[in-house]
């Protein structure tokens, strides 16, 4: 069945009974019958596709008929080309791509001498044009870049948490100090921002109750977690995924994206994984009505690092 032992011949000028023009199959009639069956099956499958579409059949039936039809037709066509058409092998010459030396010289001459001559003669024009094109190249980028978006300024440095913001859950309900039991976790937002895009993206905070008494995660944060409610920014400091995975026995907040693990009890310091910085902690207090509120905004920018982040 293979052709590599036959001498390759050129296509032009072959006699009609040349062995290279014979089909490759040992038994062309049998192959022809097989291919006909393939074509008939293919046509039937494609007709089936039409029918399935007409009656709004399930997607798998649509795909199976379409796929089967294309497959049968394809196999038939390939078999026709491979087994029934002239088996060859045929040969043709490669012409060198490179032109003659004379042509190359003339080409180079046209560019260098003609072009160079023009520029040499009108140096001032060339220089001015160059300058103009340079300016054009620069200013043409302006609408493309600047109109696309605003300047960041300090938007990345702050969230919407303020001094006295009520801590609310995603339905807008204020969190009270009796809500969570030890070992509970909730996603919270500053009141009024639980609906907004920015609220979802930047202000999102996890509220975890680690104990019943005030909890100190680090030195200087003694008042930050009243009644055991610690609040950390939910935006991972690695690449910004929400860190919603809390394991209460291991006391770890795990980021689902790249598995950075933050220790809940010591200020969300990363114990493992690619995150470089602890999750910022939100200082909380409980007001006289028993609602949880924030003492202030986060003391540092939340989320992944960027150049201006000090």
């Amino acid at each position: 069945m293979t052709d590599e032992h036959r001498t390759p011949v050129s296509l032009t000028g072959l006699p009609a009974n040349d062995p290279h023009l014979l089909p490759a199959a040992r038994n062309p009639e049998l192959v022809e019958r097989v291919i006909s069956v393939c074509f008939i099956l293919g046509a039937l499958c494609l007709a089936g596709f039409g029918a399935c579409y007409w009656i709004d059949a399930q997607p798998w039936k649509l795909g199976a008929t379409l796929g089967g039809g294309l497959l049968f037709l394809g196999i038939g066509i390939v078999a026709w080309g491979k087994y029934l058409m002239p088996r060859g092998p045929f040969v043709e010459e490669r012409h060198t791509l490179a032109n003659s030396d004379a042509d190359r010289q003339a080409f180079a001459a046209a560019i260098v001498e003609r072009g160079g001559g023009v520029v040499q003669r009108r140096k001032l024009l060339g220089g001015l044009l160059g300058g103009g094109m340079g300016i054009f190249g620069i200013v043409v980028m302006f609408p493309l870049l600047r109109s696309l978006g605003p300047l960041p300024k300090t938007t990345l440095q702050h969230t919407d948490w303020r001094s006295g913001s009520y801590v609310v859950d995603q339905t807008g309900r204020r969190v009270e100090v009796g809500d969570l039991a030890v070992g509970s976790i909730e996603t919270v937002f500053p009141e009024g921002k639980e609906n907004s895009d920015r609220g979802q993206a930047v202000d999102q905070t996890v509220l975890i109750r680690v104990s019943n008494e005030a909890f100190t995660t680090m030195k200087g944060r003694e008042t930050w977690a009243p009644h055991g409610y610690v609040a950390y920014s939910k935006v991972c400091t690695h690449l910004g995924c929400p860190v919603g995975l809390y394991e209460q026995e291991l006391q770890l907040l795990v980021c689902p994206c790249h598995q950075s693990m933050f220790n809940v009890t010591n200020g969300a310091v990363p114990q493992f994984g690619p995150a470089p910085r602890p999750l910022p902690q939100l200082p909380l207090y409980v007001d006289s009505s028993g609602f949880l509120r924030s003492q202030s905004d986060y003391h540092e920018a939340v989320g992944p690092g960027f150049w201006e982040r000090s």
Partner: protein
Amino acid sequence: MSDVINTQRSKKQALGRYGRIGQSLDELDDRLGVARGGRTFMDKIFPDHWSFMLGEIALYSFLILLVTGVFLTLYFIPSSALVVYHGSYAPLDGQKMTQAFASTVNLSFAVRGGLLMRQMHHWACDIFVGAIVIHMARVFFTGAFRKPRELNWIIGSTLLILAILNGFLGYSLPDDLVSGTGIRIAYSIILSIPLVGSYLAFWVFGGNFPGTSIIPRFFILHCLIMPLIIIGLVGAHLFLLVRQKHTQFPGNGRTEKNVVGSPMFPVFMAKTTGFLFIVGGITALLGAFAQVNPIWQFGPYDAARISYAVQPDWYMGFLDGALRIWPSWSFHSWGHTIPFEVLIPAVVLPGLIFNFVFVWPMIERKFTKDNAIHNLLDRPSNVPVRTAVGVTMLSFLGMLFIASSTDVLAKFFNLSLNTVLVAMRYLTVIVPILAFPITYRICHEIQALHGGGRRKTPNVVTRSSEGEYSATPSPRYVDDVPSHLEATPVPTFIHEEPEESGDSGVRVVDR
């Protein structure tokens, strides 16, 4: 009146030797002058080794992407405006979501054939990038990128980058939970670039994350700008291929100065058209039986929601893996932060890899000092250094790809997640380093093998009367006589001078 054609035979004669078709072709040639070029084109010889089919897989899956993609653009709404979904899928009924997501759910459940088109589009993309990779590997390992084909190599490498990027843009369009997380990660990667990161991120996204501009912008990029560039580059890629002619493996009758194979018309056209249908058929069958990207199960994207076990599509896996295993190096001084734990794996590393890929032909030329034109391919085992370099690079990328599924590996093999991750950190360095000398060694062993890598022919074993056994290779079929064993006899009824041709095995019969 004698000029009137009034008999069947004279009518037929008036049409010419090739009938009506011939007449139409004459008319065409009058206007366009295509006769000679057309004949040359149809006589073009294509080497038909099976490894040359891999590029065609990529080309035809791209065609399927275009066709199914047009269908999808008719129904997809690229808008971040919020709507309430009321449709047949109960878990989403009454939920607020972006119009992009809602239209994709609608496309999947309410449009006839919509789910099939969506799935075919997604599978065709997976196959497209996969085919580019193995095609590129074939070109690399056989040395087809050498002079005069360096430009084609660069075009092809650019196509790989564009295909990966367009795939990412495409699966992010539905704005579901899984791909939205990917967009968040992309935002943070742009943010991490020193000096200009925050500006670039705000310009690309039109503000802070997520904003409302990103989905429409991705749509225009994915459906208009990138396909135009890809189509242009594919056209240039194919044009160069036709102009420079395809390479071929050395063998019977094959030299640097010829091409051996099948003619374009009808053999190659038949095979390639059939292959197009088969690629379409396999894609349709995958689209029918294997569910992919079931965005209705993921739900709409919400910046506060996240799912575990989120990986990007496989061709972005090497980036995700690099991000997972990279240690948390971060520079933080003098009022500025440079997050190297993001910058190096997501920006620097792919930049280095792709630059290395682009300039490889130049590197190889410099080291081998080989500036000749090459139309014959190398057997990979005959160029151990290049093969080893290629295997090293592939194993490095492969390890990064495996590293993106650390949690799935830990679940499957019941290991600690931390152990798997630490192991991947070491393996990603050790495996490629080991791969180089092992591959080099294997290549040399194959070279040393008599007839290594070649198909075995049957042997005729004869026993002499003294009892000595001798084996001679025996051709399988009567006319499969290797030409180098005996001179081709010239038939006696043709009188011609034998050609003084240096190329063995090529017999040009003059008519």
